[in-house]
């Protein structure tokens, strides 16, 4: 087809053929981009290994779901929709943009495969895509500049606001869309003037608008605009490319890789060093992350990928109660460290310790490992493993808060954080005469066997309040006709928190002792009422029989009729179920506990706004009970308020630590008598039909 205007490949300005720019701009752009990328990859060369090259089908599936289908975006409705518009537009326009670069040199270039009808279909969609992207960019700019959602704020201690960078990029994106459409619109307008048949332009698109408004323009003007639009587009295109790796828009490049290399095993904790077996840990010179280079390459990629959207911190319970932790800035500070220590120009800067440098001790101890941040991140950035690695580094340096040293030492000596006597571990079953009379529990510390091993764990063995839950659990197991036993003094703390607080060797010791004791019983399966123990035995241990949470067994028993429930609907009581982090988010068990609850005849149950995978941490379990955080309020208090707002007056949970925190929060909020907390197991036990 005869072009209506002289294309950039053949145009000249003051006698200089513009094709020179068509070659120079891409060459310079690509060269600069390659240089910047090489500098950005530099720290990854010094990083620790990370094994992420396995399980390809799962990773590809994740890319389709989380990257291509933008799975997590709509969790924040408006921002999510805007992002999907931008993302989809970019995907569609990537073909057009790269074609345009080549067209500046070879005017007849057609993207492979788009020569025939498909090309026309593509053109139709890409005009809408460009228009959509422009609209999205304007909406995004409106949000950034006018409505300013709170989660984009940068607290003073973290530096200057990032609004400028965001607006600049949105302006570049808008510029790309406008020039691309202008390039096309001028050509079409000229074709109309000359009576040629213009390429069909989808109605109501930006290019269509340009075409419609410019048909009256003199040809010279159209010609100038056509070429100028082309080169502005070319310039913005390569400037944009080179600007991406300089800030939060790096995710445009890294997101695909970050999602592909995502962590596939939720709830698990990374090994101290990938490739080093547990038995060889003693040979390691240093533990954990102390300097930036101790991070794995994937964790560095995470820092680069952070889009600064603030969703993690918006969901973070530690951030919500004013603890000195905001996951977003864990990433942003590390990214800025990488940028300043591996500069684009000049020498590398000397490595500096992270703790006391970009991170504070309390910042790192503030995390309850609840996983709300990771659940929310659209880019699958990890936080828990980094927290654990940073804590491992602090533990290795002896840098542990005094409040945690006693419980850690007690774990080492007595196998429980309170320093209680080992021989009293099964006293909940053996010393309470009333309970013993109705429910004899096999204590396997001197041999004997049972089909199911009931792993109790520390808090459920020793805490006066939680023992009641343990006894309810035992009664239910008996009703369900399950042959079960407990380890007694042979059971040690599962070590779930010891590990997550960075005391890996203590965890390893506890794991070895428990594994040996459990295997010696010959049990065919393990059941526990503590989600932390459940997660530890399932994810941190290996070679054990299958592990179940007690709600699974109860659900089964209700189904089979071995546990029968009665009830009158408990008039006046409105129940709400609080998802424990280590049952819900880390193990995807959301429905079973709810089904069990709903099996109580006539029960009235409501959902809190933050429930299921958005559940709000109670304040943390295990060693977190001992830690004295800097905070304005307790997480539990916020949670109790949420239950109240939902119209509930009974909080049902399925975790002993949630119970401790909820009951404390009810008392400290002065809601005694108005609100109560009960464990699922206790509730079912109370509703057992005789």
């Amino acid at each position: 087809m005869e072009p209506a205007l002289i294309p950039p490949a053949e145009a000249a300005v003051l006698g200089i053929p513009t094709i020179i720019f068509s070659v120079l701009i891409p060459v310079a752009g690509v060269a600069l981009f390659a240089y910047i990328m090489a500098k950005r990859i530099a720290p990854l060369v010094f990083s620790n290994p990370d094994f992420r090259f396995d399980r390809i089908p799962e990773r590809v599936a994740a890319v389709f779901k989380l990257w291509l289908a933008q799975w997590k975006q709509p969790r924040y409705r408006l921002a999510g929709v805007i992002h999907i518009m931008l993302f989809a537009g970019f995907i569609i326009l990537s073909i057009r943009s790269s074609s345009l670069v080549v067209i500046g040199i070879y005017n007849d270039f057609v993207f492979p495969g788009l020569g025939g009808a498909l090309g026309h279909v593509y053109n139709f969609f890409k005009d809408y895509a460009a228009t959509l992207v422009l609209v999205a960019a304007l909406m995004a700019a409106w949000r950034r500049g006018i409505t300013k959602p709170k989660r984009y704020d940068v607290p003073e201690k973290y530096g200057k606001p990032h609004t400028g960078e965001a607006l600049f990029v949105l302006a570049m994106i808008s510029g790309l869309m406008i020039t691309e459409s202008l390039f096309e619109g001028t050509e079409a307008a000229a074709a109309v003037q000359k009576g040629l048949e213009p390429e069909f332009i989808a109605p109501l698109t930006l290019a269509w608008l340009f075409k419609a408004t410019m048909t009256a323009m003199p040809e010279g003007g159209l010609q100038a605009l056509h070429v100028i639009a082309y080169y502005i587009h070319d310039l913005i295109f390569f400037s944009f490319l080179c600007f991406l790796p300089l800030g939060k828009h790096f995710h445009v490049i890294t997101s695909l890789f970050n999602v592909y290399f995502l962590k596939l095993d939720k709830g698990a904790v990374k090994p101290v060093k990938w490739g080093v077996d547990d038995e060889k840990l003693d040979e390691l010179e240093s533990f954990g992350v102390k300097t930036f280079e101790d991070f794995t390459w994937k964790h560095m990629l995470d820092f680069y990928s952070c889009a600064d959207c603030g969703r993690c911190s918006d969901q973070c319970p530690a951030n919500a109660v004013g603890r000195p932790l905001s996951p977003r800035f864990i990433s942003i500070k590390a990214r800025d460290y990488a940028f300043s220590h591996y500069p684009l120009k000049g020498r590398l800067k000397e490595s500096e310790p992270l703790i006391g440098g970009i991170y504070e001790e309390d910042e790192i101890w503030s995390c309850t490992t609840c996983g709300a941040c990771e659940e929310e991140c659209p880019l699958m950035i990890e936080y828990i493993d980094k927290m654990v690695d940073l804590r491992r580094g602090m533990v290795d340096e002896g840098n542990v808060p005094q409040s945690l040293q006693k419980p850690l030492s007690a774990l080492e000596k007595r196998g429980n954080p309170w320093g209680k006597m080992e021989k009293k571990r099964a006293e909940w079953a053996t010393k309470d005469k009333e309970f013993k009379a109705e429910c004899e529990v096999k204590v396997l510390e001197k041999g004997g066997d049972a089909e199911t091993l009931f792993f109790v764990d520390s808090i459920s063995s020793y805490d006066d309040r939680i023992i009641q839950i343990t006894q309810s659990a035992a009664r239910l197991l008996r009703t369900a006709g399950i042959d079960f036993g407990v380890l007694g003094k042979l059971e040690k703390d599962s070590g779930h928190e010891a590990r997550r607080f960075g005391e890996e060797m203590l965890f390893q010791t506890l794991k070895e002792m428990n594994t040996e004791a459990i295997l010696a019983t010959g049990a065919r399966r393990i059941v526990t009422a503590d989600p932390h123990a459940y997660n530890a035995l399932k994810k941190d241990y290996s070679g054990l029989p299958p592990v179940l949470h007690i709600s699974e067994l109860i659900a089964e028993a209700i189904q089979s009729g071995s546990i029968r429930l009665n009830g009158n609907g408990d008039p006046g009581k409105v129940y709400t179920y609080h998802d424990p982090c280590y049952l819900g988010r880390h193990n995807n068990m959301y429905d079973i506990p709810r089904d069990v609850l709903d099996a109580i005849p006539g029960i009235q149950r409501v959902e809190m706004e933050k429930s299921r995978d958005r559940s709000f941490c109670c304040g943390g379990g295990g060693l977190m009970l001992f830690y004295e955080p800097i905070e304005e309020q307790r997480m539990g208090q916020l949670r109790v308020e949420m239950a109240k707002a939902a119209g509930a007056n009974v909080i049902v949970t399925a975790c002993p630590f949630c119970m401790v925190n909820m009951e404390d929060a009810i008392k400290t909020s002065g809601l005694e008598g108005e609100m109560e907390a009960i464990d699922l197991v206790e509730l079912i036990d109370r509703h057992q039909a005789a």
Partner: protein
Amino acid sequence: MEILVCVKRVPDTSENEIQVNSSGTDIERDDLVYSVNEWDNYAVEEAIQIRDRVGGSVTVMTVGDDESEEVLRREMAMGADNGILLSDDAFENADGRAVASILKAAIDKGKYDLILTGAQADDGAGQVGGMLAAMLDVPYASLVNIIETIDDQKIKVGREIAGGNQEMNEMNLPCVLSIQTGINEPRYVGIRGIRKVASVEIPTMGAGDLGLDADAVAPKVKRLDYFVPDMGEGAEMLEGSTEEIIEKLMELLKAKGGIKS
């Protein structure tokens, strides 16, 4: 600065249920777990911090049996450079004076500028520090909560005085200081730290090595009895679950005007 810290292995009260044995001669020692005496741990941390500031070395020393080696290792994992175990069957029933005599004999074998002890031990009488200073004939300060080094001759020492007051003193080296908890925040020692120093040689010295005869270490104080005192007038033991105890205590406090409802 050459610093010596005298430490002791004790049953940790927070991790044990201490009960008097049936014959009333001692506490029930089955099922006890031991650790470094808490005050001593602060003393070692302080010594390490001083060494890191001004150079020198930290030696930890204990009078005890073979099992006491474990606390020396723990303190070496913390950062002490050397450990010395003073162990002999003759030391078994040593009283405070005997322990001070044994330590003095060992200290005479080396050269130390600064000698630290804990202010007291969980199972002790708080007497070794003072006696040791007297035997060595060097200055002594007790309940120390601040140490500032001036030069290799003098130090400034702060003491905690009743009522939350603070006293500052200047002292000549060598001297003995007994250290109060809270002087610093002792670093954490985990299993990994201890394993790292597991194979370090710890020399042991007995009575013969120290030139001590049986008389010198024989106890001069004889323990007659060990018992839980009878309840006195006006004392009342509250019983029941924690909740019940709290409730009863609240009632009592309200009834006696301790708190106003």
